[in-house]
């Protein structure tokens, strides 16, 4: 388990004038991992990736590829390759020339280039397109050409900067699966950045959640979803109902009172809490149970159905708590038990303290 990581960042920072775009980021990516960096637009993802690629120099910190510091190594000498946000295929070259570009720069002879280009195009499922112009391909196929152009150089690490951003929703869903398969097929380390949590959750072995230049949490999709360690992660990954509250006692779990005056019980997550602290409370929509007639135990309430967002298996109810006036999003159980519920009806709802995550607020 002590393999040298393919990529390692140690306290990497980057400042533009007096603005810190990336702050003391550290992480290590073991070989063959699909590693995603997930964060909202402008949080510094591209800046981090460009430092790894070598287009920007870190203000401080160290960067290692296969255990060797590459701070003084120019982009073309690092064993990394990059799929750009808008793919950046060369429009004046045909597909074969695009894919073979890097090999030509390395002085590989023509016959070998042709053979390798054909092989890599085969592997991405685009056999026999080498002589066609780039524009004759669909968005998804261009995507694969962009990946082939990188993979033909056999990099240690492939960097991908929101490569699905320009595709439409349907194709994006499809490409998620395909990218994951391509990564498994090439068994190359992928560092993938995106602002779309579902892309990250579906594809990644490891995800780093980034916010305002720092890594909030690094973990598997499940860890991030079920055990978010900061309020930001709890809010950004997956959906959640959020309350603001104040701690009343810490004797058995956390007892707190919300701004609307409701008493809740929860589990402390992240930093230690003290009595009187302002806290943010997160509850996932699928953690909330419903009942027509009987009041529920634990954190509970009664609410009026304000809206029904029907979306097959992902349908949701929007409830308005009758006593506190708070809004509550609840996943509609898939058993069909509540399918005849309509706007204006009143239901009981409740959830477990164990599924009520409490974070120190600001």
């Amino acid at each position: 388990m002590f393999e040298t990581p393919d990529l390692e960042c140690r306290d990497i920072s980057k400042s533009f004038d007096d603005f810190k775009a990336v702050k003391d980021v550290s992480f290590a990516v073991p070989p063959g991992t699909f590693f995603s960096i997930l964060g909202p637009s402008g949080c510094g993802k591209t800046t981090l990736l460009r430092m790894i690629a070598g287009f920007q120099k870190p203000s401080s910190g160290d960067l290692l590829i296969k255990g060797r510091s590459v701070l003084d190594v120019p982009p073309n000498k690092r064993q990394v390759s990059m799929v750009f946000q808008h793919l950046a295929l060369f429009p004046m070259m045909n597909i074969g020339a695009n894919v073979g570009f890097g090999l030509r720069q390395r002085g590989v002879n023509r016959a070998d280039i042709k053979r390798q280009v054909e092989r890599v195009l085969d592997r991405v499922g685009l056999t026999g397109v080498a002589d066609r112009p780039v524009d004759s391909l669909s968005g998804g196929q261009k995507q694969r050409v962009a990946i082939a152009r990188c993979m033909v150089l056999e990099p240690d690490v492939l960097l991908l900067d929101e490569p699905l951003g320009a595709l439409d929703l349907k194709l994006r869903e499809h490409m998620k699966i395909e990218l994951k398969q391509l990564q498994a097929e090439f068994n190359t380390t992928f560092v993938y950045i995106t602002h779309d949590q579902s892309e990250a959750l579906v594809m990644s072995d490891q995800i780093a959640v980034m916010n305002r230049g720092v890594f909030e949490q690094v973990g598997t999709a499940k860890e991030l979803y079920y055990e978010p360690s900061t309020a930001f992660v709890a809010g950004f990954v997956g959906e959640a109902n959020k309350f603001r509250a104040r701690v009343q006692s810490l004797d058995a779990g956390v007892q707190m009172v919300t701004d609307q005056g409701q008493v809740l019980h929860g589990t402390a997550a992240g930093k230690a809490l003290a009595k009187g602290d302002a806290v943010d409370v997160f509850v996932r929509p699928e953690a909330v149970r419903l009942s027509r007639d009987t009041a529920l135990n634990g954190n509970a309430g009664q609410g009026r159905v304000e809206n029904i967002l029907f979306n097959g298996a992902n349908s949701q109810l929007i409830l308005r708590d009758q006593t506190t006036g708070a809004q509550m999003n609840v996943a509609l159980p898939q058993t069909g038990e509540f399918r005849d519920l309509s706007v204006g009806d009143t239901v009981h709802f409740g959830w477990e303290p164990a599924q009520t995550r409490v974070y120190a607020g600001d």
Partner: protein
Amino acid sequence: MEKRVTFKGIWLPLLLVLPQMLVTAVFFFYPAGQAIWQSLFIPDPFGLSMRYVGLGNFEYLLSNPYYRASFVTTAVFSILVTVLSMGVALYLAVLADRLIKGSGVYRTLLIWPYAVAPAVAGVLWLFMFNTRVGVVTWYLGVLGYDWNHVLNGEEAMGLVVVASAWGRISYNFLFFLAGLQAIPRSVIEAAAIDGARFWTRFRTIVWPLLSPTTFFLLVVNIVYAFFETFGVIHTITSGGPQQATTILVYKVYADGFVGQDLGSSAAQSVILLLIVGALTVLQFKYIERRVHY
């Protein structure tokens, strides 16, 4: 595709294009028609009557060694002006593109030559190269070179080429810079990360992507060299020495207004008109194909 405004009926569109049509008619079709008409006649020395000669003026022109020499002069002059002004502009634009932050100042400085009228530009350069009081001439003399464009045809050509090209550099620079900036940075970086050095990137990526701009400038600059350099040539050499710098446009003027040979002058205008027409058609055909994108 594009959204277009469509008009019902014919009157509104007609009314809208009318001013443009009038201007074109008065300042282009009428004089062009006159030129074509006149090119078929030879007027008598006092301008009292005209004798119809059919294509006689053209036949005479094309068999006239001076006119044919002027063709060669024009070709040499236009190619030199175009290559020089575009080459320098491209070089400066590539530099500016690399350090785009400082290019505000750089750009403003480069605009200045464009704001100088050709004749004034001519006078400026003439002063510098004046055979008796010119600064550059004096320095060349110190270095042991005896500059005299008044007698030396090649030096005269060199001077009018430089003076004409100078005024075009800023114009070309702006187009090249805009063209360079329109190339996505990621495409260049993709080439860089694949190992292409600056010169390879320029040759294989930048230059092809810049080709629509280059082609447009090529046509515009050739047309400029053909016509708008009149002022420069008139002030610096007046076409001399011994017609060494008499380009076609200058010959139209020299034969028509100085030599009073109106029939021949008109025929020359018609030939020029045909050349420009051909260039324009070429440009549109090419631009329609759009090269890349």
